């Protein structure tokens, strides 16, 4: 469990980070909290000759809330997220989800940016960000660009981020209505067997909008447009729940692992989604 030798960089300016990425290309990676990258290096599943630590870059760990828009710096930790009163008021689902990630020790180090940028289908934040229709800000040699969370994920560990780009912040429009993040896991510290992020708007007893994303049930997070659509216009009754479940099951593609076979995962995904919708609806 000892990584191959690597050079360690701790630049203080983003320009220097970009320059290092340009110089070393594929051989360089940036590191935020390190909770995904370092274990992979220790297992020698990832060899990173040039490791660029982002801890010393100013301005990456700030949280802004203005004009109905939240901006969360890439180096904001899960712990920061949980303990930010403004975020809790503006988007309580963030706190509810972050509390279900690993344990306090991990959450002190694990960052929002690392969680969304790594492209690990087991991570909770990518699905959550899709549910919230977040936008990721990427900085590269040619300047900045934004990519919607719903367009960001291509396959396991494959994202729209180019090798020379760094994800610097996440912007989220303040969500409306009820919310829930429901996750089944085997134990503390585990990835989800199935997890669902739900935001739902209720007007006059009817659902007028619903956003649903699922975690660890495909090689990317799954934003299920059809599952959300199945709820719109209904009173979120049993029939609507079943329709949403059926739509979601059409979108996910789980694989068997130590958590269980595909049939089990699909069943649990349906149960977890229904529970998330019910809880979100009760809060809407």
């Amino acid at each position, binding site marked *: *469990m000892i990584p191959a*030798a690597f050079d360690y960089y701790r630049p203080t300016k983003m320009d220097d980070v970009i320059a290092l990425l340009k110089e070393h290309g594929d051989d360089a990676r940036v590191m935020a909290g390190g909770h995904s990258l370092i274990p992979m290096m220790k297992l020698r599943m990832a060899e990173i000759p040039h490791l660029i630590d982002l801890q010393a870059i100013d301005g990456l760990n700030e949280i802004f809330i203005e004009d109905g828009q939240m901006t969360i710096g890439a180096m904001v930790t899960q712990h920061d997220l949980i303990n930010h009163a403004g975020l809790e008021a503006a988007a309580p689902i963030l706190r509810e989800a972050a509390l279900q990630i690993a344990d306090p020790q991990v959450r002190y180090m694990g960052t929002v940016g690392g969680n969304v940028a790594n492209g690990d289908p087991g991570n909770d934040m990518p699905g959550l960000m899709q549910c919230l229709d977040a936008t990721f800000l990427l900085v590269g040699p040619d300047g900045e660009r934004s990519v919607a969370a719903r367009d960001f994920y291509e396959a396991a560990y494959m994202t729209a981020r180019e090798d020379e780009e760094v994800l610097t912040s996440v912007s989220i429009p303040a969500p409306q209505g009820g919310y829930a993040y429901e996750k089944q896991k*085997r134990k*503390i*510290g*585990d*990835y989800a067997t199935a997890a669902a992020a739900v935001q739902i708007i209720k007007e006059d007893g009817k659902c007028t909008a619903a956003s649903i994303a699922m975690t660890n049930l495909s090689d990317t997070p799954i934003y299920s447009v059809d599952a959300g659509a199945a709820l719109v216009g209904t009173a979120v009754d049993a029939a609507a729940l079943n329709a949403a479940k059926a739509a979601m099951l059409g979108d996910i593609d789980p694989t068997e692992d*130590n*958590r269980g076979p595909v049939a089990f995962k699909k069943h*649990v995904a349906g149960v977890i989604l229904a529970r998330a919708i019910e809880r979100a609806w009760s809060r809407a």
Partner: protein
Amino acid sequence: MKDEVESRDDRVANLKGMGCSRKRVEDARFTQGKGNYVDDIKLDGMLFGDFVRSPYAHARITSINAEEALKVPGVLAVLTAADLEPLGLHWMPTLAGDKQMVLADGKVLFQGQEVAFVVAEDRFAAADGIEAVEVEYEELPVIVDPFEAMKTDVVLREDLVADDGSIPDGAHGPRTHPNHIFTWEAGEKEATQQVLDNAEVLVEESMYYHRTHPCPLETCGCVASMDKVNGKLTLWGTFQAPHAIRTVVSLISGIEEHNIRVVSPDIGGGFGNKVGAYPGYVCSVVASIVTGKPVKWIEDRMDNLMTTAFARDYHMTGKISATKEGKITGLHCHVTADHGGFDACADPTKFPAGFMNICTGSYDIPTAFLEVDGVYTNKAPGGVSYRCSFRVTEAVYFIERMVEVLAIELGMDAAELRRINFIKKEQFPYKAALGWEYDSGDYHTAWDKALTSVDYDGLRAEQAQRVEDFKAGKTRKLMGVGLSFFTEIVGAGPVKNCDILGLGMFDSCEIRIHPTGSAIARLGTISQGQGHATTFAQILASEIGLPADSITIEEGDTDTAPYGLGTYGSRSTPVAGAATAMAGRKIRAKAQMIAAYLLEVHDNDVEFDVDRFVVKGAPEKFKTMKEIAFAAYNQAIPGIEPGLEAVSYYDPPNMTYPFGAYVCVMDIDVDTGVPEIRRFYALDDCGTRINPMIIEGQVHGGLTEALAVALGQEIAYDDMGNVKTGTLMDFFLPTAWEVPNYETDHTVTPSPHHPIGAKGVGESPHVGGVPCFSNAVHDAFRAFGLRQTNMPHDHWRIWKTANELGLHD
């Protein structure tokens, strides 16, 4: 403070002797990060060794090329079997009478097997060196199923087949197939068959007790240092049995035993994982001899989970017969035991399946028969951990499931079925059908106390209502009431029937009283977290009348501690605890003579009273043990040698038989398979209780292990022999979050043959806990027709049970 003004109660309290919840003296250093574990040892010029391990479960090795590895900066040497062969060290004996490759000798038999040992200046260079060693493998068919192993033409151990193709006997008698290790029988085969054939009620059930691992916080490791000037080898390591390791090292290396010093420093949990001898020890010793420098080897977490001492892997089939009223008449048990590539259990020589013949449990079963087949497969060797070599956990799981299955067949309440079959108090000492003589017990009292404490009838009523509600669609949660009543067999053991590799399983204690009235006692055992420095001082305090706080307990250094067989199998209190008491009594006997001399009376005219000898009938005339200690060294006493020391080697006359009654209340989410433990009640009877707080801690720890094993912890292999659970992501190690609140309780039935009546408790909660958690899962589905489903009861397996019972329709 004057003795005269102290009340007797004060004097008793000052001793902090037996029965006192004395705080653990070890914790001051452990809670401040001041423990001294093997990886804390740093010696001048120390090198680091680590293994190239096989990625394959079964393969021939066609070549090993270390050329590139030796070019890695800091890498000094790469050892292979070819290097060890001239020393006769490429294989080593196991504690079960088999032999095991130290480094792969032409082939590998399990994933993770040690292939080459890279010696480098530090662990980082060693890791790079490992990557650079080129090994060519030729894959062979992989056998992970022991039943298939007994049929296949694929021979795992060519070394155990004669040139003419015949199969020589093994260490435990005839073998019937190249992959067969032993068949072991206990009890009466034909008589049992007759009883079963003529039974009013007969049930048969098969169950698999999966392979798991204890995953101690600290992994295995050692530091070997050969001093070529004085010819002395010092070996520090995570050894649960340092003296046995010294003897084994001497036997296999040829170094005389007085030139070997084995030291177990602080050990971060053992659970049997640190009993056996591992290739890392041998390679470190050889590397130190070759380089003339100290060599350290420390497993990482994956090495530990994948290669050192697993537990269980028992396929058990039982038949149990009874009268229509539920009186059990006979029991038959067959086991196919998967031992992996080598038989590396640490069982007493005469018992290749440990004490599996305790499988009649707590019940008065007149006739029984047990048969165990040991089999080789392409899995890691071990079978030591979690009480595994002694197989009591397997035995108790077996009988506690069979009783539940019988209750289902009879339509009886499982608590009542147990009650009518318990061995009665007046039957002790009780000779069981499979040979053991239970020392003492009062099962009915314990059972009644447990059932009353949890309001058993109320739980059953609530459960019945829950089933109604479930059927009516009002809830999706079922409720299980898990029961277990276990009888342990610990304190191995009497030399007449217990030895490991010919080493008798006695234990020892040596005491020196210092002139000022404090003491040091050394034992042949070694604590791995059990708190020996606390509890053994308490035994002595009560025996010799000096405060526990004035007694240092030392273990683990073979140069200073008396010979003993170490700590595992809950044997420290029953064996070394007895030795401690007996040595203390020798001290007291001499003290009595000194006191009589000082008080100018006859020896028989003084008697021991807490912390002093008093003149009978004249309690104002006394000498405290402190005064006696001073006199022993500093006063010429006619006919008595100076000094106050004693040593005792204790060979127990019998095993001890702790027991307990556990109840678990569990709610199960039928749709997700998630179990939630609402309540866990544990009544333990470990005989005389030395330190109630430490007992409670041990019970909490053991129950948590049991919860892990029952609900998810496993070492799983795929068909290619790849370990699927080699990291803590997939290997279930419960945290505070997953652990319920435990309610502990006790009764006290002392062991009649033990000097202080203590029986040992370390493993009881594991032994009794696993069937209790498992029975709770089973019980939740009893109303829907479930009879048996295998552990571990993780989410998907519970869900599968619900699914197969049609509860998702």
